[in-house]
Structures are given as structure tokens and as C-alpha cells.
């Protein structure tokens, strides 16, 4: 405190000194008290402040180390389709290959491709492709040039690009078809600092933080410079934040502009600089910075941004492209190059100029780069999850090994068996057939559906649709719609019977006459055939072929419900099966996935291969984590299942699915299923290479007005008409003989007799009684020929 200045020199010294004494006295007393107060409270306050401040610093530091030492980012997991294997003789159309290349973001060029990720097509049949490096489960496959020709929808030649050397096989990088994103919707691809091009680092530091290697997290000089620049411009034109401050802001703080946030930012920046090396800070920044938005996904980090804007890795960008990315840091949406190319170009040129000033570009280079266009790639197509049912299946199958958080944040690379072509065909078939059915059948409305396609021998899921609008996320009917299966049960019952060849053969006579079963004291059950008629006696193979209910119930009760249940489990059904008589007509519920598991065992001739979708999982760095190998177990003997498969083939010729005979020259097998009141329409069928199960029904379980043949079979056949279908090739096991029998009586016959059919029998079970033989007349022979 200073004394007041004397107002006039004329005031007496005495007076003055008196005044002084009074003042001194007056001041002295309170001053002593104040000093006391000052000393005491200030000290306490100071101590409290120091305590508070240091614990606050410790708190901030804990936040920093937790985030930096643990997992800094949530990295989404990516789900890949199967890689397309190219080899001579492979069935592949030109359209399919082009679609596959486009989905993997290959660019079509007019001249000979020169860079990885390019291809050209000559005469709509010859392809020249330069693949990219890609890391598979079994190691990295280097970029390679290949050329191939497609003739008659098959690969006729597969060569190296620049030589005549034949390639026996080439694996194309797989389509990335979905991501499992963290709740923050952030997407990024990590890059190590030593992989980041020097020019990018130089440009970044030139634009964002020139004194990065000199400051301690906060740069007062930059702040002053920025303040001056802002004052001169009358608004915010320059930020004084260092890279470290920007990183702190992005990693730890909310975006609002308050003084307290600014102080926190500065404190944390300094703490970060104390604890971490500059290179760690720079690498983290390069991977963290927000650089754009693709639908719901946020593009973070330079590597992903490079792929998002240029479909190329950061290492391979031209310097002008790097300059654009660096320019985007200032405002990814304001400078969004696809929306605002002029703004983006101006910003890029500014960055190029700075690079020139820093000596990274010569004047000639600067002018050359400034004259170039932005060089953007086409916007990547997938953004949101277009395959909700498939991703759900992938997640469920991974759940045994990884928890939900790992899936969303560990950056796993998940390789599946999904075939993008089959998936797109399946989706198209669903849309086409469901609307067609609703137009053709009055009762058919609000239909819902499920479709599952798997490879028949390996049980690998290739496609799955769980909603009439395939990209609609919600109830996954393929996995969770548990519905009565109707006649789809029948092959399991006949299989159970045929496993006892001494009792049952395909030529056994079954009773198709009215039947009453006492189910309880008061209740009687009288099963009916679909046509409400009874055919008297019928041979076993024909009863299955024509899906007769009444003889099936008799057969089922005869072989025993528990034996049927055992067979179902051997076929791969994991649910409990109720042991009441109506189960023989499929009055119990399975999901389409369960049914696919069950029929897969028929398709693989008695080998149960649990259906799976995941092949391998790699970590974020491409190191193998886990492989899910093909596992199969022989659960049904090959002879009895062969007999049933022969009848299931016959079903597609003369039975309930005979419409397939006119549509497909290939040999197929399958079974229709219809439930009471036409609530569910099913078809399960297979070719040599594919198995598919289709279901059509309503969520409210009301009648659809469709049988298995008029509904689900149509969907199945529509899909298979668009696939490459290999004719079913059944290998007759040793110990099974073909014998001609009379289709009426089941007795021995020969091929020249009227009504004779050739059926397979397990050795020793052939009929011994001879049937009466009426010779085949000329007319019958002609009829037979045309049949």
C-alpha cells in the first residue's frame, strides 16, 4: 500500500508529519491484522491450492496414462467374405468377376494396369489385374499381376501378367462386407510412424505445428502469433494449439470452448509431453485425427482417410494427395473434397505452398502439383451394415471365443465363408419371389421369409437372408424363428426305418388306410393325408416320394419315437424333440438354421458337419488368432442315407417337388414341408455343391395360403436358377445293390415288366418273392422312353 501523494507543497511539515503519524497509526493497526490474516489464510489457502492442484494433476495424469497405455482406440472389427479362388476351369462369369473387383475397390482402367488395385477388361472376356498385398491367415500374399480369360462362363486361361507362365491358382483379396463398430461409430486403420511418409509428416508439421519438436506441449510463441493474427483479422483465423494440445482435445476433452477446458488442455498437453516421447505423440495424433464422415462412420486417422478418399494406402499417395489430407485437418466437413472440390483444392494448394516454403517441394514441383486435379477415388459403397442377419450370425459364432467388447473394439479381422455373389442373388430372389407370391395368392400377405445357403459338403454358410427386406435389422428369422417343420421330418423317419434293413426296405409295403390313435383318455387323433384320401397299400419309397402322412405315422410309431429322436440328433438337430405321435408329422419346431444343419447331413451322405460361417480370425496387425477348422463326424451309416437320398432325388422328379425336373437339367434332391392350415411353407434341397433351406410364413403365425411346393420351393428354385448348380452325384456305397421290383406289390420283377422300378437295396435285404410280370408293350416302352 502506498501513501497518498502530498497535494500541495505549501502544507506545513508539522502538519504533514502529524498526518503521517496518524495515518501510520491508523494504517498500522489494520495492516498488522491483515498481515496476520494474510499470513494465516494465505498460507492455508496456498497449501490447499497446492494440494488440490497437485492431486488434480495426478488425476489428469492418471487419465492420460490409462488412455495411452491401455487401448487408446476402439478399433472396429471387419468381416470379410470368402476370397475368390481363381483357377482354370472355375465357373465364373465376366459380370461376376467385375462385380467382385468393384466390391474390393479395384479401379477399372483403359490402358494396361500399372498399379496394384487396377484392372482392365479386353473384349469383355480377357482380364488383366494387378492385385494388392493382402494378409491371409496363412501369411501375406504379395501384389501380383495376373491375366485370365473367361470363355463359356469358365476360366479358360490363368497366366502371370507379363509372362506366359500359367498360374495353377490365384486367390483374390476378399470383399470386406461389414464392420462391427464401437458405439462411438469410429472407424480407423492404424499405421506405425515409420510407415508414414516423411512428406506427410513434414506437411502436417508445417501447417499445424511448426515448432512441434521444440515446445513442451504448449507453445506461447504460437499463442501470441495466433492472437495477433486473430486481432488483425478481427476474428479467429489461426489457432495457437500445438499438435499435442489438439491430440489432448480429441482424446480427452469435450469440444466446447471454455476457459476451464483450455486450461485443462494446456495442463494435459504438458503432462503428456513429460510422460511420452514426441514420436509416440505424433503417431497417436496421426491415427486419431478426425478426417471425414462416411454415413454413420467417422473416418479417423490418415491411413483410413487415405483409403476413403483415394482408395490407396498412405504410403502410396502422391504428395499433392498428402497435402489434401493434411489440409482436411482444419475442417473435414468444410473442405470435404467430394462435396466442395473447389474449397478443397484451394486448401490443398495452400498446404502445397507451405511445403514449398519449408523446402519440401521445388517451385517446379509446386506448380506441377497445383495443376493436378484432386485425384479422388469413387466413394466406397458400404457404410452402414447392409447384412444385419449375417453379422448377427458371425457375432453369435464368435461369442464363444470373444466377448462383445472385444468384437467392437479390438480391430479383429474376421474371415468368413460368405459368397457375395450368392448373397446378392439370394436377396434378389427373396424380393422377387415374395412380391410375386403376394400378387398371385389372395391369402398370401405380410409374408416373411428365411433363406440359408451352405456348401453341401463342408457346411459353410454362403448366404443368409432373414427378412423380406434383407437389409432390415431386426428379428433374425433364420436363427430365431422356431417353427413347426411339417413333412421335413419325414426323411428322418424313413432313415430310422431303413437303418433296420431286415425290417424295412424301400420296397416295404406300408398301410395307407384310416388310422386312429388314442392320445389320452378322451382324445383320439386321426391323421389325414394332404389330399384327404387313402391309397390302401403303398410302397415305402413312394410314401416318402409323395409325402403321404398316414403311412408315415404308422411307420414312425412302429420304429419308435425315441429312435426317431436319436436319428434327428445324429442328423445334427440339437433341440429337444417331443415324444408324442404327432411329431411324426413334424408337429414340433425348429429354426431354418436347425433344418439346414439336419439336411446338411443328408447332403454330405451321413457326415454331420456343424454349419459354420467363420473360417479364421486375425488380430488388428494381421497376426493369426484362431482358425475354425472343418469338422465332420460320420453319424449315419452311408447305406441307409444313400437309400433315402435316392428317394429325395426322386421327389424332385416325380414327387412333391417335381416342378424342379422341368426347370433344372441337373440332378437334385430335396423335400417339401407344409404345416397345418398352411402356416409354414418349407423346402430343403441340395445339389452337389450347395444346400439351401427356404421358409415362408407369417410372424403372427397365420395361414399363408401356401404349401411347401407353392411357396418355399418357388423361392428355392428361383435362387438356384441364378447359381452355378452342379448335378448331384451320389456314389453308391459298396454293399448296396440295384434291383428291379414291381412298383405295385414290391415283389421281384425285371426291367421288361410293366410297372417295374429299379431300387437300391442294402445287400441281403432284397425282396425274394417274385411278382407277376406283364411284359411291357410297344406303347408302354415308348411312354417309358419319353418319361
Amino acid at each position, binding site marked *: 500500500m502506498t501513501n497518498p501523494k502530498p497535494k500541495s507543497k505549501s502544507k506545513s511539515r508539522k502538519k504533514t508529519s502529524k498526518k503521517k503519524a496518524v495515518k501510520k497509526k491508523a494504517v498500522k493497526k489494520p495492516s498488522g491484522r491483515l498481515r496476520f490474516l494474510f499470513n494465516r489464510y494465505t498460507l492455508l489457502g496456498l497449501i490447499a491450492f497446492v494440494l488440490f492442484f497437485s492431486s488434480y494433476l495426478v488425476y489428469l495424469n492418471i487419465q492420460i496414462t490409462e488412455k495411452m497405455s491401455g487401448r487408446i482406440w476402439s478399433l472396429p472389427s471387419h468381416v470379410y467374405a470368402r476370397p475368390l*479362388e481363381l*483357377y*482354370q*476351369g*472355375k465357373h465364373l462369369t465376366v459380370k461376376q468377376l467385375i462385380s467382385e473387383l468393384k466390391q474390393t475397390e479395384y479401379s477399372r482402367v483403359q490402358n494396361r494396369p500399372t498399379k496394384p488395385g487396377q484392372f482392365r477388361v479386353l473384349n469383355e472376356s480377357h482380364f488383366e489385374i494387378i492385385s494388392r498385398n493382402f494378409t491371409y*491367415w*496363412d501369411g501375406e500374399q504379395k501384389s501380383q499381376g495376373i491375366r485370365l480369360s473367361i470363355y463359356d462362363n469358365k476360366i479358360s486361361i490363368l497366366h502371370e501378367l507379363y509372362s506366359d507362365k*500359367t498360374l*495353377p*491358382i490365384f486367390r483374390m483379396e476378399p470383399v470386406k462386407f461389414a464392420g462391427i463398430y464401437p458405439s462411438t461409430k469410429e472407424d480407423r486403420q492404424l499405421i506405425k510412424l515409420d510407415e508414414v511418409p516423411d512428406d506427410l509428416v513434414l506437411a502436417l508439421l508445417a501447417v499445424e505445428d511448426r515448432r512441434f519438436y521444440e515446445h513442451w506441449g504448449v507453445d506461447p510463441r504460437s499463442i501470441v502469433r495466433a492472437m495477433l493474427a486473430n486481432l488483425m483479422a478481427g476474428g479467429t483465423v489461426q489457432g495457437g494449439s500445438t499438435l499435442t494440445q489438439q491430440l489432448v482435445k480429441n482424446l480427452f476433452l469435450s469440444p466446447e470452448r471454455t476457459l476451464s477446458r483450455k486450461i485443462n488442455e494446456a495442463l494435459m498437453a504438458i503432462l503428456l509431453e513429460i510422460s511420452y516421447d514426441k514420436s509416440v505423440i505424433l503417431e497417436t495424433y496421426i491415427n486419431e485425427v478426425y478426417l471425414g464422415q462416411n454415413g454413420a462412420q467417422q473416418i479417423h486417422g490418415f491411413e483410413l482417410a487415405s483409403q476413403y478418399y483415394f482408395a490407396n494406402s498412405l504410403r502410396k499417395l502422391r504428395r499433392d494427395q498428402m497435402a489434401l489430407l493434411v489440409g482436411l485437418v482444419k475442417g473435414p466437413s468444410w473442405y470435404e473434397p467430394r462435396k466442395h472440390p473447389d474449397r478443397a483444392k484451394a486448401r490443398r494448394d495452400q498446404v502445397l505452398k507451405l511445403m514449398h516454403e519449408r523446402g519440401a517441394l521445388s517451385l517446379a514441383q509446386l506448380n506441377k502439383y497445383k495443376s493436378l486435379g484432386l485425384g479422388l477415388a469413387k466413394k466406397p459403397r458400404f457404410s452402414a451394415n447392409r447384412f444385419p442377419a449375417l453379422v448377427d450370425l458371425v457375432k453369435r459364432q464368435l461369442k464363444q471365443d470373444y466377448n462383445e467388447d472385444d468384437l467392437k473394439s479390438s480391430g479383429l479381422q474376421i474371415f468368413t465363408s460368405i459368397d457375395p455373389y450368392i448373397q446378392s442373388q439370394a436377396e434378389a430372389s427373396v424380393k422377387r419371389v415374395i412380391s410375386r407370391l403376394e400378387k398371385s395368392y389372395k391369402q398370401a400377405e405380410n409374408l416373411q421369409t428365411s433363406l440359408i445357403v451352405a*456348401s453341401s*459338403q*463342408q457346411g*459353410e454358410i454362403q448366404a443368409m437372408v432373414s427378412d423380406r427386406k434383407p437389409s432390415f435389422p431386426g428379428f433374425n428369422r433364420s436363427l430365431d424363428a422356431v417353427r413347426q417343420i411339417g413333412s421335413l421330418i419325414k426323411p428322418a423317419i424313413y432313415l430310422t426305418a431303413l437303418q433296420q434293413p431286415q425290417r424295412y426296405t424301400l420296397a416295404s409295403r406300408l398301410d395307407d388306410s384310416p388310422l386312429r390313435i388314442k392320445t389320452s383318455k378322451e382324445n383320439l387323433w386321426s391323421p389325414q393325408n394332404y389330399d384327404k384320401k387313402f391309397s390302401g397299400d403303398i410302397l415305402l*419309397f413312394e410314401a416318402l416320394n409323395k409325402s403321404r402322412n398316414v403311412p408315415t405315422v404308422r411307420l414312425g410309431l412302429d420304429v419308435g419315437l425315441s429312435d426317431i429322436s436319436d436319428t434327428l440328433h445324429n442328423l445334427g438337430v440339437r433341440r429337444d424333440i417331443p415324444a408324442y405321435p404327432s411329431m411324426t408329422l413334424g408337429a414340433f419346431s425348429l429354426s431354418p438354421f436347425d433344418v439346414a444343419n439336419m439336411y446338411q447331413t443328408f447332403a454330405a*451322405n*451321413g*457326415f454331420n458337419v456343424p454349419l459354420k460361417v467363420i473360417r*479364421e480370425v486375425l488380430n488388428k496387425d494381421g497376426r493369426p488368432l484362431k*482358425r475354425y*477348422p*472343418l*469338422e*465332420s*463326424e*460320420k453319424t449315419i451309416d*452311408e447305406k441307409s442315407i444313400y437309400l433315402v437320398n*435316392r*428317394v429325395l*432325388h*426322386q421327389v424332385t*422328379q*416325380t414327387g412333391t417337388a417335381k416342378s424342379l425336373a422341368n426347370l433344372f437339367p441337373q*440332378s437334385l434332391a430335396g423335400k417339401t414341408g407344409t404345416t397345418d392350415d398352411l402356416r409354414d411353407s418349407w423346402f430343403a434341397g441340395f445339389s452337389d455343391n450347395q444346400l439351401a433351406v427356404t421358409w415362408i410364413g407369417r410372424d403372427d403365425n397365420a395361414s399363408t395360403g401356401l404349401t411347401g411346393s407353392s411357396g418355399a420351393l418357388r423361392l428355392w428354385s428361383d435362387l438356384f436358377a441364378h447359381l452355378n448348380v452342379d*448335378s448331384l*452325384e*451320389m*456314389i*453308391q*456305397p459298396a454293399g448296396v445293390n*440295384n434291383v428291379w421290383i414291381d*412298383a405295385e406289390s414290391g415283389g421281384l420283377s425285371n426291367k421288361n415288366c410293366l410297372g417295374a*422300378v*429299379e*431300387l*437300391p437295396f442294402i445287400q441281403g435285404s432284397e425282396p425274394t418273392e417274385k411278382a407277376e410280370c406283364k411284359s411291357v408293350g410297344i406303347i408302354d416302352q415308348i411312354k417309358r422312353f419319353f*418319361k
Partner: protein
Amino acid sequence: MQISRNYRSNQTFLQIVPYKQTLFLLLSLFLFTACSPQAVLDKPASGVLPVADSAQLPDVIKTLISQSDHQFLNNDFAGALATLERAVRINPRYAEVWSRMAQVYLKQGKIEQARQHAKRSNSVIKNNDSLRKFNNEIITSDSIEDSSVIQKEQAH
């Protein structure tokens, strides 16, 4: 009505040269690896292993088998299985591929999976008694020690 009309039965699909010979070659190679692993690494697998004998196999399958043999000899059993699975995806009808998977499982000590794959191999054999016999040896062995394939290897 004739059930068998649309069915092509017993077509000759794959004929493989006597399997004993291939087995012998493979076992000799094991012995060779034990003595000098580097020497085997330097040798092209396809020149030594019986793949070249399987004239009926298409090039793509031969290449993958050869690759899996190489992985097998380098004790990369999971890799060998993954490569054989690629072959199975291309065409699951080659008994030799399934049988090789059985061999890899056997070497891994997974006897049950070895048996199952040997059975699968048998299920697609059309005309190859020696391969069937080889598979049956794996199927009937009660343990890894029982397996004549391993016994022969140890005897060497």
C-alpha cells in the same frame, strides 16, 4: 418310374497310383527330415511327394496338395490343414485330399478327427483299394500309438 434313371452311378472319378508307394515315399521323407531338416526345406516338395504321381488330379488340386505337403514337412500342421480345406472347397470329391487331412490330424495326435477324415475319404473313393486300405488303417487304430502309419514312421 425308375429311380435310378437320373443318377450317374460309379463313374470313374479318380484313380490314384498304388498308395503304398506314396506312403513309402512319405515315410522316407519323414526320416529324411529327421536327419536333415534344412535339406528338405530346400527341396521342392512336389518333386519328392507323390503328388506328381496323381496324374488324375487337376493342376489346382495338385498345387494345393503340394503346398500343404510343404507346410506339413515344416511342422505347420494348421497351415497344411487350411490349404487342404481350400482344395476341398474347390472340389470335395477327391479322396486323396481328405485322406491327407486324416494324416495331418494323425500327426497332430487328433485321432478322432483323423478317423473321421479317413472315413470321408473312403466315402468318395470310387476305385482305389490301396487308398481305402490306407484309410482303414487309420480308422481301425485305437490310439495314435496303434496307428500303423505312425508305427512305421517310428520304426524308421
